[in-house]
């Protein structure tokens, strides 16, 4: 059915509004980062800097803790993404393919686990990490993030597995493929977009997370980027806005880069034509 021209225009206007809504904060961040300290507090703010300045970037880059904190964030986020995906993949397959009472209980528990408020578990988590000797360590933080991200990633991934027709597995089995071969050569390649999406979700969750990092990490050398950013904000509304924007922009770059590389994997339609009828 053809879409009427007026409807099409409306759709594009809505899409444009949505993009502006999402993009404006980023544009403002970008603009603030390139404004001079005086222009940042100007009475008549402009969308783009009147005169482009690198002063805020100088302050941000002069902070000797910037690159170590970025490296810590990268280690934690990549580790979280890999571990979460590796654990969630077989679990998601089992959940999607094996219908049993255990599945119902497990799925129920996954949903219930999302109900616990953040502040409720922070002290237990702190004490568990202390007892494991993982306080103030990056592995401790990775452990928390994996546990935190796992229920949702499991839920996401089992949806992707369910979307793969069983017929494909049966066809491969009919052709003589073993279970392992079916998984490795049929299922996993088809799951690639799902795996990438799941890994990216885990990565971004860990990259942005502040509160657990705040309570787990005390050594400045082990701080992640969100902790560093928080120290640009003082009390009583005091904010070092320019350096904060510049640092935020710098800390956004790695995740943007990873998105740019990974987004090609996020294509849909891989299954198109795989099953007839």
């Amino acid at each position: 059915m053809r879409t009427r021209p007026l409807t099409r225009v409306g759709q594009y206007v809505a899409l444009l509004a949505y993009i502006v809504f999402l993009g404006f904060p980023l544009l403002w961040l970008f603009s603030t980062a390139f404004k001079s300290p005086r222009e940042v507090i100007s009475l008549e703010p402009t969308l783009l800097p009147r005169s482009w300045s690198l002063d805020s970037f100088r302050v941000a880059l002069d902070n000797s803790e910037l690159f170590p904190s970025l490296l810590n964030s990268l280690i934690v986020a990549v580790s979280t993404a890999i571990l979460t995906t590796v654990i969630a993949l077989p679990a998601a397959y089992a959940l999607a393919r094996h219908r049993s009472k255990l599945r119902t209980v497990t799925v129920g528990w996954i949903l219930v686990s999302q109900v616990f408020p953040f502040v409720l578990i922070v002290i237990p988590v702190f004490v568990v990490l202390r007892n494991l000797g993982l306080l103030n360590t990056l592995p401790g933080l990775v452990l928390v993030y994996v546990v935190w991200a796992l229920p949702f990633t499991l839920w996401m991934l089992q949806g992707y597995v369910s979307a793969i027709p069983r017929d494909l597995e049966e066809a491969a089995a009919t052709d003589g493929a073993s279970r392992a071969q079916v998984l490795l050569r049929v299922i996993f390649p088809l799951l690639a977009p799902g795996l990438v999406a799941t890994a990216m979700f885990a990565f971004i969750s860990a990259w942005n997370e502040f509160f657990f990092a705040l309570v787990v990490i005390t050594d400045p050398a082990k701080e992640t980027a969100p902790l560093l950013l928080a120290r640009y904000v003082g009390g009583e509304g005091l904010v070092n806005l320019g350096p904060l924007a510049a640092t935020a922009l710098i800390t956004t770059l790695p995740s943007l880069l990873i998105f740019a590389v990974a987004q090609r994997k996020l294509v849909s339609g891989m299954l198109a034509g795989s099953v007839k009828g």
Partner: protein
Amino acid sequence: MKRTRPHVLRRSSLAALAVGSTLLLSACVSNSGGGQVSTAGSSLAPDQKVSLTFASYAFQAPTVAATDKIVADWNAANPNIQVTVQKVAAESVHDKLVTQFAGNQAPDIIHDESADIASFSRQGYLADMTSMVPADLKSDVPQSVWDSVTYDGKITGMPTIAQVYTIFVNKKLLAAAGVAVPTAEKPWTWDDLAANAKKLTAGTVSGLAWGLKSPTAGIMSSGLAFDGTFVSGDEKAPTMAVGANEQQVPNRIAAMLADGSMAKDSVSLSGSDVLAGYYGGKYAMIMAGNYIATQVEEQAPADFDWGMLPLLKGTSEHQASNPQTLSIAQQSKYPAQAMQFIAFFMKAENLAAIAEGDALIPVTASASAAMGKKLGAEHGWDAILGSADQLVDAPWNKADKFPDWKSKYATPAYQEFLAGRTDAAGLATALTDGWKTLSGG
């Protein structure tokens, strides 16, 4: 003084948190009130090495540098007692401490503020420093400031630096309007402020601006100049009354808003949001915490001639004492050594460097003198530095329910009042009813 946003781990959520924690980890957690009580004595074996942790929320770059220098100097002079700094974001101090206390992992030395340590003191998480404070240090701080860090008879925080609310003026605009800058000996009264704000209001210029987005602390503190104490009775659970004294400052603000001498747009801005208008000549004067001076120094145009005025006078120049503090965790194994470091931190030149970095007032007379010697009368610092003895204990800061009342009732009530949606009587009712509700009465 440092935090205006509600903490994630506010007291209201702590109850739920405590229940949940108990349910989830009852088998493996062994917590007890103030955590493990320190057992070590004050003396060390000759070759014994001690490591102390010092959690600091120093924010301004010069203060961070001054803190690092103090710690480096201490470590160089005391090879057996080494101090390590843990940097904490100013807005996260409370949340982090709640977790660390509960997990028995608190730093030995804790940088916080007097209003925030009330609950920690009562829960037994902070060591009683009463008998540990050296005599010369004790006498160097006004008694009224000691009162603000004394909980149930125990000193649980060493007061360091404090803020006052003061008037920042654009001297060129004052001179043009024929308004003289007052002296410390003859400060402006609130009546003088109103009269001069009116004189300075002309065309696009408003006489006064006050960033009252978070109005409670500033208005209540200023009210002490009219003896507006708000609460009385039991220190932990006092009763509230909002009478004529407590209404003085809100009514004066309302009058200035009504006659246009105070900028209406400013009351919805934060303390530092009004600075752009101040630099741009839109506001001739702004009321702000004196810490704003750091930003003014950094951001104001080179030819901007500014100054801070002596504290405004009501029946007195009193304001609330809510100094930053250094406390010792009850869980610390080395309280005596922690106290030695704190005493070193409080040395005049050290505290003066910290105070100068944050543009706050050192509470010791010796540090105030050192800072005054360096800054002189520039920008009115002489009058501001001399105002530490005007800081008096604000009884509401010690009430357990104050943080909840402030965020749930007082701030919305003051905002309604400033927006003209309620009158003085309505404000008083909202404040007292809120207090009663939290008291369960």
